[in-house]
């Protein structure tokens, strides 16, 4: 595809049957994913879900075992330098050359990126106590994360990929990072807002920033919608069942089941009031339902197939 075919309707990321095998393990399993342009798209998944592998394939650093992947309309395996100028990437390691000073790294990025905007850099870096003469190795983890984000945003990318950028940051640094991201993405200055792919395990961050929630599990796409829409799919039912509770295998849409203080707690997916009737039919004396937080909804969704130790 060439640039003239990349229209506002073209997905920024498009994979078709994308597979990546590491030995016997399939890190990406026939992944079909289309991420539209604009907004903040959060990707969540358990460890080993394939998130980092997906990014490395999309950026051309890993060849797929099968299938195809395009990013900003370009084949991932054939990204040109001018394509990379349009894509920003920040990962949890915040790997920057430790022996260079902040000023030297900034100058290098400024020279290399034709779309560099110094005001954006100054605005973001202003949230952090970073001196130009400091060496990168002397920065704290939070300062390095903020510096990395400032560098990425100042490039004015069309697509910004953030792979667990707040990992290891304290609460204050995390907050500063998110505020910088939100503020910078909102301020357009006459240019198009960039599309952000935000990968994290922190649901409170997702709730705060994401317009779209994408759930990956074992290399497959499990869900994609607005966060509230997903949260609405999961309900918490509490039932007082005096006798034997229904067999978990018979419970429709079951994500999680617990018994606390004699009450049975069910987290279920895509169930309406008919679930209450099911519980009553199973012997429940009283039934109550309530919404769940996004964090609980996602965790229970991902935990249903998670490995667990065999009960003693």
């Amino acid at each position: 595809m060439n640039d003239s075919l990349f229209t506002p309707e073209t997905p920024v990321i498009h994979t078709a049957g994308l597979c990546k095998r590491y030995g016997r393990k399939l890190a990406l399993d026939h992944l079909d994913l289309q991420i539209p342009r604009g907004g903040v798209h959060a990707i969540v998944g358990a460890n080993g879900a394939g998130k980092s592998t997906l990014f490395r394939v999309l950026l051309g650093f890993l060849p797929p075992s099968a299938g195809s992947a395009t990013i900003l309309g370009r084949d991932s395996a054939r990204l040109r330098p001018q394509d990379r100028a349009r894509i920003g990437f920040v990962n949890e390691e915040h790997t920057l050359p430790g022996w260079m000073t902040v000023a030297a790294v900034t100058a290098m990025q400024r020279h290399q990126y034709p779309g560099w905007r110094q005001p954006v850099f100054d605005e973001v870096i202003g949230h952090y106590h970073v001196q130009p003469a400091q060496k990168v190795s002397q920065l704290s983890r939070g300062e390095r994360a903020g510096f990395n984000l400032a560098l990425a945003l100042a490039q004015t990318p069309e697509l910004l990929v953030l792979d667990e950028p707040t990992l290891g940051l304290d609460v204050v640094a995390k907050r500063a990072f998110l505020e910088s991201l939100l503020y910078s993405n909102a301020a357009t200055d006459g240019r198009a807002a960039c599309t952000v792919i935000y990968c994290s395990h922190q649901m409170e961050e997702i709730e705060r920033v994401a317009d779209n929630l994408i759930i990956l599990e074992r290399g497959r796409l499990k869900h994609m919608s607005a966060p509230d829409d997903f949260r609405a799919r999961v309900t918490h039912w509490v039932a007082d069942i005096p006798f034997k509770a229904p067999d978990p295998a018979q419970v429709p849409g079951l994500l999680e089941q617990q018994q606390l203080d004699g009450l049975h707690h069910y987290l279920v997916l895509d169930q309406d009031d008919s679930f209450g009737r099911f519980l009553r039919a199973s012997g429940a004396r009283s039934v109550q339902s309530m919404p769940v937080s996004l964090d609980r909804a996602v965790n229970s969704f991902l935990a249903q197939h998670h490995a667990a130790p065999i009960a003693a």
Partner: protein
Amino acid sequence: MWDLFKAELLRFRGWAIGIAGLHLLVLGFLTRVVDLGQQPWLVHLAFGIAYGAVGGLLGLYQMGVYRRPGTWLNLLHRPLAPARTAAALLAAGAVLLAFTAALPVLVVAGWQAGMTARVVDARHLLLALAGLQIAGCGYLAGAYAMLANRRHAAAGLVFLAWLPAMNAIGLAALALQMVALLWLLALVMLAFQPDLGAPPRRWGAVLLTALPLQMGVYLVLLLLWFGVEMLWIMQGSHPNNRAVPAPGGHNELERLDDRARLLAGLAASASPDAQRLREQVALSEPMGIAQQLRLLPHTGELTNVKPMAFDDTQRRVRWTFSHDSMRLQGLSLVDGRAAGTLGVGAANAAFPVPVLPIGRQPFLAQGDELLAGGNTLYQYDSLAGRVMPRLQLPAGELLLGVSMLGAHLGALSDKAAYIIDGRLLRNPGQGLLQPRQRVPLPGPGRFGDLSDLTLIELVDGHLFSCSFTRFAHDPRGVPPYQVLLRTDDAGQVQEVARRAVGFDYPALFRYRAWWSSPVMSEVLDRARALLAPPDALRATHPAPVPRDVKLLAAAMSLLAALAAAWRVRQLPLRWPARASWVAACVLIGWPALVSLWLLVPAEEGVDAAPEATPRPAPPRALVA
């Protein structure tokens, strides 16, 4: 790109200064103790290994830090072509190596040239370039080892093995080092891609990678054979380890003492004088002609066969040969100042070839010295302060050594042995000595095959025993044999005995390097000899390859080709590539097959897509 280059220089600035300082310190210390320009090849080899190691460590560390997944992504995910990023990093490495390896050599050479009377030729200054290129090869080999796919990352080491093995000298050696450097650079540039570890795809890239890889596999094969020989030695039946060598074999002949060797040769003689000669062997003292020159010096060579200098203890002057002036330069041992130059004869003419001192002989006056170069023996006359030619062999022959043979002087060339009347030796001004006898080395073997030359003086001449067994264990050597020659006072040479000597090693073992891959064996020999001057001292008369060895080589190639034909069917290759690989295995054998397995990975199999599950519809575009 410029920013990256500066950043890399900054990164290693401290190390570069430290290593350059240490290098300068070592050279500075050594140059106060010895004349670094006159050190033999082994010393230069040690320095070369050090330069290569420093370069290798730099390449391994520099690229090792970058090849971590996150760091590699950060390095290459920028609007800069990978080749330019690589160029910036490698250029910085080159500058660092120039500063640490080459600059100290130039500084010390400059000091020696400007502040001392020692000989500093242009070839010595070129040592700085050689050091830089060797360090550069180590650097690139280390970088490639870090960046390339693990399956063939060691291929760059082949070039490091080539550097000390090549026989080219001077500018030719520098040119071949540059070839190695450029090839390694090409390999590194091929490996410097976002997808680290991706195998080469285009045919040019495959060739550039496959050829050194195949040579590397072949060298590993030779190492394995070495291991087999070690096991054979440990087992105790190795020909070299047997307490009693096999009768009639070349080991037996080599282990005999001189007298027994002469008698063994006479045992096969049909000459009517054989019995009388045996009696004279029992009475006479066997002698030999020493070979002072085991390697020949060449004009412009970067290293030295041995120090090209000798001391005149009478005049207290050290004379050192200069390749630039082709004359001896004097240095006073008293005050270290220049003490003139010496050429040939009264005209102080330039020597036609570099000369080496070959020690003193009893007939020389105190302070005199013998020098050898080309076909001429020179005598340095300390009293006259002059160098005069004393013995000139026929054109095309190389004088290799002289020894006193009783009252006479013996001389050895690559083609013959000479006896010079001892009464002619005392007067250096008498002009060129004329040999009384010339004994051509009996063919078909050449000088490289000669393992022993022993002679005894007869009543009316000499009896020579020539053994040609040096490479009897090797495909290079002539089939071993021994010849006895008898000379008389009239200068006539008569062959009195010739006997074939048995091989102690079976043919399949002797030719193991050949049948493993005839093509690679030939390539290895040619790589060593590329651009090298002919070496008469190593010239041999190899026997034709035995038929059963050829059959074995053909069988090995066929097996490799069949295995390749089976393997390529499993690989994602088009038919021209498949055919090329099978043809390579026919031609090159098992090294090509192993390189196929290492270079072309099998396709990553992926099962069919799982049952169709409802795919979430993509949300509407969120662009305002």
